[in-house]
């Protein structure tokens, strides 16, 4: 398969790897076959004493053999009829023997092209190419192809689809190196994949440590002895209460670890890429032009090692956060976080983010340092509504983005480029009205970043609203 990598005609119809149906069926199929085979072996050796008279066993064996043959034949047929083609303007995928399906994905609608390598496929040296397209349910999956071919297909698709996107990125930034890279992209897309420059890599130890220092984990640690005590003393109520919660928390934590193992953020001439995963390797490109907002976080326990996490809202991405596509940096050092931010927003003001993360913890402390963007914070009277976090509620305006900070223990700075603000909402409850305060919601697409400036002075809030409307409209005109 990978032998024909120097493809003579890239628009020809191609087949998936012959093992694909087996892998797509996954473990279930393997297990079924294994069970059938073991049954057969039992039958042949005459070791099966469960069925005393031989005839049903024979029938069972025959049925199993027929089923197996049917499976193999079905798989083979399904492989024969599945094919795909990188056509002149669309990616075409044909599948199905009885229910024929011909799916076309237009290149200009392609949102992202990911590579996934589930465990079984990885063992077989295969990858799945997952093409995400704008519009629900129009995704195409090429499962499975040999690694090399999958890479090649992905790069070709990215070159065909991503060109307009990266052009937009180019417009938004003035970084000359990016410009050169983009101009060279169509040509370089057919050359061998370069590793590019690593922006951030998360070692496993750090991931585990970061996970251990989470509040959630501390809860887990506290709950385990309770559970053990419950088990030891036979108190069913305790076990019933603690057990499921423990399982759920532990499960989600384990899932997170498995998902973010081997995390690496790379940058090459084509853009920004992420690869991650323990069992299922996944490599995807970060659609920089579709990022609507960025959230930088630091839980209390990460303050000592100075670790940060970065998550983004991506337009059009599925809203379930479980697949972790919104995580750009699960846990990184300050340098890595700042490097990531710099890559995301080449002309952005990183200092404003740093300020937002660390300044004005003390009462009466300065709200800005060293002349960077000053954060406008909630007035002292907001202490009645937010005694602990009051100092942290605030916003700052830089040349290209609105920064919203908050969180006393779990610090957060959310960055929304002016041009990306969807709409603004001002809210005022009865107590806020009495205190002449108001809250401003900066609405963006669904995702981990949902910026909200709490308890601003009411006049300040309306000023922010009005000024931001004007800023956003100017910025939109510039971008589009």
């Amino acid at each position: 398969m990978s032998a024909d990598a120097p493809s003579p005609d890239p628009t020809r119809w191609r087949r998936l790897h012959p093992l694909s149906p087996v892998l797509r069926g996954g473990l279930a199929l393997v297990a079924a076959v294994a069970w059938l085979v073991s049954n057969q072996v039992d039958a042949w050796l005459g070791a099966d004493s469960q069925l005393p008279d031989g005839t049903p066993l024979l029938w069972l064996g025959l049925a199993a053999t027929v089923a197996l043959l049917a499976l193999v034949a079905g798989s083979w047929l399904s492989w024969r009829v599945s094919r795909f083609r990188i056509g002149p303007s669309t990616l075409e995928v044909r599948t199905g023997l009885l229910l024929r399906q011909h799916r076309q994905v237009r290149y200009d609608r392609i949102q992202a092209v990911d590579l996934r390598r589930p465990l079984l496929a990885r063992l077989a040296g295969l990858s799945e190419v997952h093409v995400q397209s704008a519009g629900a349910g129009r995704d195409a999956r090429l499962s499975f192809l040999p690694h090399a071919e999958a890479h090649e297909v992905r790069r070709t698709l990215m070159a065909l689809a991503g060109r307009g996107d990266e052009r937009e990125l180019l417009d938004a930034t003035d970084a000359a190196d990016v410009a050169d890279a983009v101009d060279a992209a169509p040509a370089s897309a057919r050359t061998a994949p370069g590793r590019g420059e690593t922006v951030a890599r998360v070692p496993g130890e750090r991931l585990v440590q970061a996970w251990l220092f989470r509040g959630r984990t501390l809860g887990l640690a506290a709950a385990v002895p309770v559970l053990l005590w419950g088990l030891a003393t036979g108190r069913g109520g305790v076990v019933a209460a603690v057990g499921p919660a423990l399982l759920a928390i532990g499960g989600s934590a384990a899932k997170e670890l498995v998902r973010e193992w081997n995390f690496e953020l790379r940058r090459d001439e084509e853009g920004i890429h992420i690869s991650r995963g323990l069992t299922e390797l996944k490599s995807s490109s970060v659609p920089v032009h579709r990022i609507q907002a960025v959230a930088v976080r630091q839980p209390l326990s990460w303050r000592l090692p100075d670790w940060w996490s970065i998550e983004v809202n991506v337009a059009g991405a599925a809203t379930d956060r479980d697949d972790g596509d919104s995580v750009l940096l699960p846990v990184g050092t300050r340098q890595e976080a700042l490097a990531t931010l710099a890559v995301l927003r080449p002309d952005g003001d990183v200092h404003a983010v740093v300020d937002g993360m660390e300044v004005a913890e003390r009462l009466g402390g300065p709200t800005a340092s060293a002349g960077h963007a000053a954060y406008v914070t909630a007035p002292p009277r907001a202490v009645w509504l937010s005694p602990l976090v009051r100092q942290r509620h605030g916003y700052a305006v830089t040349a290209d983005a609105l920064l919203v900070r908050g969180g006393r223990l779990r610090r957060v700075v959310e960055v929304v480029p002016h041009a990306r603000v969807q709409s603004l909402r001002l809210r005022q409850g009865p107590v806020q009205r009495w205190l002449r305060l108001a809250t401003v919601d900066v609405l963006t697409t669904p995702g981990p970043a949902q910026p909200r400036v709490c308890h601003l002075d009411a006049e300040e809030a309306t000023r922010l609203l009005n000024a931001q409307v004007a800023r956003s409209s100017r910025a939109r005109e510039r971008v589009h």
Partner: protein
Amino acid sequence: MADSGAVETEQGWEPVALYGDGGPQWQGVSPRLATARSVVASVVCGVLLAAALGLWVALSSALLLVAAAGVVVVWLWLLWLVRRQVSAISWSEQAEELVIRRGRLRRSLVSVPYGRLQLADMESGPLSRHFGLASVQIHTASPRSGGSIPGLPVAEAEALRTRLTERGESQRAGL
């Protein structure tokens, strides 16, 4: 409810003074919306009251009489509340955005740029139709964003929807 929508003179959002120059022209929604909502409240309260009184006749328990009195109080309060709430809803079409305000106790103001508008649709249930009302819903790429203006006369709602769609298309910025 023609274009004579009263400029809000109460304190409230007055200081908002969007765009400084004298504040925007706020348009209120039709008072018929209050009537429509009052009808709904009255039907529910009326049924409850009838049930309480019917049970009182059957069981003659003083407690039920108290309950009936309670229903009457809630009814009157709802009638008052509905008028207050409806009169608090107002909207304004600015040069680049649509602004909707609502709520008295918990106030909110949402500002949606036309360029962000993905869809503006009109909706009218059976009761609203009876009162000749419709609501205009606006949607952006963010499900939490957007908003709705209830209780517009049908013709006005239609006109507003068309205007919004046109402006959305001319100022389209998508994401």
